[in-house]
């Protein structure tokens, strides 16, 4: 009985230690050898390699679509897309943990020291209100003044007599950075609530009849919110491309200036090719390269 117990415990402990050891070794191998193992494969043969893509939660879905189409067309390549936020994606690209970082805002000066980028798609940020809100159009200046805190009641812009609840994103969010830049309210924005992620903003706007917020266009479908027109122009791909819609943002792929491995370069080139841009269009974003 006692012996049996000891055996069980020993067995468990041995398995646990072995498991730990394996995990530890696996971890070490990954960080030590990824660059060296991928490089020779790429130089020796034309086919294949692993590309790690990481960054903006806004951009990740379209990057995933690109990755899937790319892998279907190129056997031997693996493209892994991780969704972690623009800031974390840029850090990963700078540190070499990821081959490509995804950004939904322009890169800042610190990041541009080590990184280069290409813009592969264009999206619009839409200003959203509760579906019951009668205001369907705002001018650019009205939006600006609402987010600056100069307009605080919906009646000032032709709506109900109710206080405006301004909902923003976290500091450092790509969508927030882009919106504040495009609305020209950088550093001066006033807000009543902060949503966690785009979904947090959508949920809060759905719950508050007098709320206003912003998310990227692709996320609005199926939610109980409405996207307001800006200066009479609703968001569309054409309006974003010709500049008549003011809140258009670029989706960027950032990579090391010092050069990338062959697999990464193949993927970067393919994303800008007509095949890659067709995937962008199929995902209902505006292609960055007009073919």
């Amino acid at each position: 009985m006692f012996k049996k117990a000891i055996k069980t415990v020993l067995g468990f402990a041995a398995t646990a230690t072995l498991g730990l050891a394996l995990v530890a070794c696996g971890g070490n191998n990954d960080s030590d050898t990824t660059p060296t193992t991928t490089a020779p494969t790429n130089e020796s043969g034309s086919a294949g390699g692993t590309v790690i893509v990481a960054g903006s939660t806004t951009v990740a879905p379209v990057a995933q679509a690109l990755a899937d189409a790319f892998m279907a067309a190129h056997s031997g390549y693996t493209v892994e897309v991780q969704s972690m936020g623009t800031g974390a994606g840029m850090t990963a690209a700078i540190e070499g943990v990821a081959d490509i970082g995804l950004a939904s805002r322009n890169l800042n000066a610190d990041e541009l020291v080590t990184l280069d980028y290409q813009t592969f798609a264009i999206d619009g940020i839409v200003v959203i209100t509760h579906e019951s809100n009668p205001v369907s159009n705002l001018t650019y200046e009205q939006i600006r003044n609402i987010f600056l805190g100069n307009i605080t009641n919906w009646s000032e812009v032709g709506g109900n007599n109710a206080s405006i609840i301004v909902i923003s994103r976290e500091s450092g969010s790509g969508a927030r950075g882009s919106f504040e830049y495009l609305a020209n309210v950088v550093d001066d924005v006033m807000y009543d609530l902060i949503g966690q992620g785009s979904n947090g903003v959508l949920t809060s706007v759905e719950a508050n009849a007098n709320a206003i917020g912003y998310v990227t266009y692709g996320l609005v479908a199926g939610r109980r919110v409405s996207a307001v027109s800006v200066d009479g122009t609703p968001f569309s791909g054409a309006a974003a491309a010709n500049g008549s819609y003011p809140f258009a943002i670029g989706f960027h792929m950032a990579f090391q200036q010092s050069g990338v491995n062959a697999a990464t370069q193949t993927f970067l080139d393919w994303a800008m090719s007509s095949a890659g841009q067709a995937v962008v269009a199929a995902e209902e974003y505006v292609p960055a390269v007009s073919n």
Partner: protein
Amino acid sequence: MDSAIQQKTSRRVRAIEVTTKILFLVCSLVAALTLLLIIFFIFSNGIPAIMEVGAINFLTGRTWTPTHSTNPQFGMLPMLYATFISTIIAFILGSKIGKWGAIYLMFFCPKKIYRPIKTMVELLGGIPSVLYGFFGVAVILPFIRNNFGGTGNSLLAAIIILTMMILPTIINLGEAAIRAVPNHFYEGALSLGASKTESIFKVVVPAAKGGINGAYILGIGRAVGETMAVIMVAGNVSRMPGTLGDFFQTSTLLAPVRTLTSGIAMEMSYASGLHRDTLFGIGVVLFIIIISLNLTLAILNRNQTNYAKES
């Protein structure tokens, strides 16, 4: 012959014992090393950031604008204050409900309903915090919005959620502490002529003080550390909800707040440079708070017999 076999067996047993000992030593070191690694990582990133911002600025600044293009501010006072206030009030409510609940379960509860109540309390303790948050979004926020106005995302919502979350910790551990008090305390008090209520409140509960304090500290620890559920209901704006003087105005309770943990969790994936390091700085402060809580417990219980620990 016999002794040779015996020797062989005992050698084998000793070998097993030594191996086991080493294996178990490694297992216990995993936990200890994890703690040291976390301390090292948080402090090595956080302390330089605190120095750069200035400790006084960091702790007492009221403006948190980490991404300001020309003059970023890293004042964490609103977050510290929100954590402090929400924890204190949730603790005042939760500790009373929890302690009296535990006493009821232990001394007054009919056997028939003890099991169901106890099981439900235990289950409540095992529910993932995101589900508490979901309950908050679906029930508490609309309730506050409809009855008091505003958006519902507020300090009040955070306090309600935290009170609910620390209840199971306090009830379960409190009951265990009271149960661990030897029965003769209770019987002795009764036989000396004390009433049931007197015996419980003047003899048994004071004797269980050590364990109950432990339950309180763990409850506070949970309230300070809770992240997900609070993010979902608190509104997350890093702004003072009112000063101490006008605290009991409803506008203070209905103001959105951001706690230390939600500050870290919300911005970590978007932050870079000094902004990211100041989040580790918040981690340092959080760590010091938790350590102080545990020290407080140790000091409180210096002269207390903890029956729960002894049995």
